[in-house]
């Protein structure tokens, strides 16, 4: 290896250990205990925590006062060669804390404001504003600044994900434009993207349509490379994400019918009745998961087809209905993950792809023998949710195990944040797991890390998890918010600087569409307020008359430990309403022939 005596820029994430004001040098200790000496220069400036749509927050003037022991900061600067080592000079200090142990993203409305900002960005980008939301002009591809690209494609899943974001923002804010966007989108999916198979009495969803003016050309099977010419399970799963979240807010029976008939598709054609679990693909014509035409997707199972049900729609469906069959489905999903995914004899990452007999598929496409950091964290997060529904030691054990392992292999202990796809096993002589393609950090994977540690801390109370939750959220809020053009960046480089090339430049694409960014906002606010800081949280609903079964509105915000949250107050059209069950988190709706606005205040019980 050549001599490393050259300068290079980088970011150090760490906790201040000491500060010599005279010499303008402070100590910075990383998560894993390595200490750096950081020199301040006459040009060093500092910025404080800043949410979307907030002005620049300059901390240069109070930099000295902020450099106190244990303050968590990012020092962005240059390593200069010096003798046999390097010395680091900081050019920018980024303070995620307002003061020591005071993280602004733990404010009771930080994430609500962020959700509103992101949702408004997409409403403006896709529809020109809230006045006339017309999905015929929606396009999957959006530029960095939110301009619709010329491609005619409208993908079902990206519309559904946008709907999810809109519905979630309505739940948090009660502002009607978001529910309007969600409902119009749900109707659009039904009218244009739904295939009602009258003979089988099931529904499946087109991959998308291409719009050319008023003409539309339906794209039946997936045209996405991983899933070419098949119906992938995950596309059908995510087609339900938006409508299900909308159903939580409005109880529209037409949505429930679509959901049930899509789940029928899953159970009749994707379910492996012999070996358990769901196949990842079926042939679009024969609906056969074992069709030769599926090629490398023939008779396979993967994380998406097995585990993604829970976060995408199934948990929200359970929350909306309380139907025991969805509870059972969630439990069987968790059981399947616990049984088949761990592979710790060979790798710190779970196994994600399987043949139908559950033998490991380590030769598929891009995945090979690689692990997705965000999928591991997502498993931990969702096991903890399902554990609050059906407490099982194995769920907590695996979630805890993942929570303990991931910082050692999937987290950037130098700069903060969570990596992307890694080789699951090290080759002989290697000391760290290799990156499959790069060491960039994706917005959705940061979400998984934040939520995993937020819920782990919220339920199990281990301060190590609080530290990781805070560091994860700090990295995301410090580097992913696009203060110039709105919403969040797709990827950042390892040092936190946005990466803006190719598809990763876009704000709308096959991958990005107001889902993960707003899901993060919704659930972070739930976990922080109700589990961490013990603050109230208001949620809003606008049900159709006699939509929900028995006119009962279920308002549990997420699957939280039983008895940890209760309803404190309810308002119907701003008037206090007393007909609710505080402990069971249900509201008996008024018998009216219009759609009332319901506001529910949830509070932690202290249990």
């Amino acid at each position, binding site marked *: 290896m050549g001599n490393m005596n050259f300068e290079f820029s980088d970011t150090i994430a760490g906790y201040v250990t000491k500060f010599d004001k005279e010499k303008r040098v402070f100590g910075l200790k990383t998560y894993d205990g390595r200490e750096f000496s950081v020199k301040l220069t006459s040009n060093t400036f500092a910025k404080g925590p800043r949410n979307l749509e907030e002005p620049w927050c300059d901390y240069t003037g109070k930099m000295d006062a902020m450099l106190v022991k244990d303050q968590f900061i990012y020092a962005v600067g240059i390593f200069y060669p010096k003798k046999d080592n390097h010395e680091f000079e900081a050019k920018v200090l980024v303070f995620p804390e307002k003061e020591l142990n005071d993280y602004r993203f733990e404010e009771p409305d930080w994430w609500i404001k962020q959700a509103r900002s992101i949702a408004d960005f997409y409403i403006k980008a896709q529809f020109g504003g809230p006045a006339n939301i017309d999905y015929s002009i929606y396009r999957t591809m959006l530029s960095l600044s939110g301009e619709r690209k010329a491609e005619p494609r409208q993908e079902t899943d990206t519309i559904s994900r946008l709907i999810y974001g809109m519905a979630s923002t309505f739940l948090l804010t009660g502002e009607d434009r978001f529910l309007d966007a969600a409902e119009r989108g749900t109707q659009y999916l039904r009218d244009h993207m739904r*295939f*009602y*198979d*009258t*003979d*089988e009495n099931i529904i499946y969803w*087109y991959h998308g*349509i291409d719009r050319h003016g008023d003409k539309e*050309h*339906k*794209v*039946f099977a997936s045209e996405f490379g991983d899933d070419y010419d098949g119906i992938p399970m995950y596309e059908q799963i995510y087609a339900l994400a938006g409508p299900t979240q909308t159903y939580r807010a409005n109880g529209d029976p037409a949505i429930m019918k679509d959901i049930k008939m899509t789940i029928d598709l899953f159970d009749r054609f994707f379910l492996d009745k012999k070996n358990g679990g769901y196949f990842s693909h079926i042939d*679009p*014509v*024969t609906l056969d998961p074992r069709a030769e*035409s599926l090629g490398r997707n023939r008779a396979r199972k993967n994380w998406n087809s097995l585990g993604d049900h829970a976060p995408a729609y199934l948990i929200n469906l359970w929350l909306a209905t309380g139907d025991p069959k969805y509870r059972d489905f969630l439990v069987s999903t968790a059981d399947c993950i616990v049984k088949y995914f761990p592979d710790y004899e060979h790798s710190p990452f779970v196994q994600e792809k399987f043949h139908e007999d559950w033998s490991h598929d380590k030769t598929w496409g891009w995945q090979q023998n690689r692990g997705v950091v965000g999928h591991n964290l997502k498993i931990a997060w969702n096991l903890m949710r399902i554990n609050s529904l059906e407490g099982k030691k194995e769920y907590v054990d695996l979630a805890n195990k993942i929570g303990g392992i991931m910082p050692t292999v999937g987290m950037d202990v130098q700069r903060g944040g969570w990596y992307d796809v890694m080789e699951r096993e090290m080759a002989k002589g290697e000391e760290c797991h290799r990156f499959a393609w790069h060491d960039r950090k994706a917005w959705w994977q940061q979400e998984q890390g934040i939520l995993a540690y937020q819920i782990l801390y919220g339920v199990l109370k281990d301060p190590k998890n609080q530290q990781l939750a805070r560091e994860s959220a700090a990295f995301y809020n410090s580097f992913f918010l696009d203060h110039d053009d709105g919403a969040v960046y797709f990827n950042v480089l390892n040092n936190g600087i946005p990466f803006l090339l190719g598809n990763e430049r876009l704000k709308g694409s096959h991958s990005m569409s107001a889902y993960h960014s707003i899901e993060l906002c919704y659930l972070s606010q739930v976990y922080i307020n109700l589990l961490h800081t013990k603050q109230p949280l208001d949620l809003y609903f606008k049900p159709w008359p006699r939509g929900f079964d028995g006119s009962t509105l279920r308002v549990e915000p997420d699957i939280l430990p039983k008895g940890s949250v209760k309803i404190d107050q309810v308002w119907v059209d701003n008037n206090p309403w007393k007909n609710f069950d505080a402990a069971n988190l249900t509201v008996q709706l008024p018998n009216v022939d219009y759609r009332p606005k319901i506001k529910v205040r949830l509070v932690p019980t202290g249990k």
Partner: protein
Amino acid sequence: MDISTIQRDGVTVIGLPCNLDGTTSNEAQEKIMPLLVKECCVVLDLGQCDYISSAGLRVLLMMAKSLGASGGKLGLCGVSSEIRDIMDMTGFLDFFKIYDTVDGAVEGTLKEKKC
């Protein structure tokens, strides 16, 4: 179900005597698929078919896929406006070549094969 089959200039012309829906599609599939030999040209005459359901569409798609994979060609004729609308709305119209008459379908399918 009695489907008719005749040979015209090397093209197998199959006539369906009924609608193609959930009650008839299985039997139609069983009778038609064995006729699709490698690289053959097939014309399906839907002149007596007023309605097609998703199961029926599936049979047509299977025929198209099977022939496509083996180097054969499929043409449809006698397609009613209602069936054409169903195929258009479901996005499957582009999967098929549709002709006005049996003669036109035979000629067109042969030309496609030669191309």
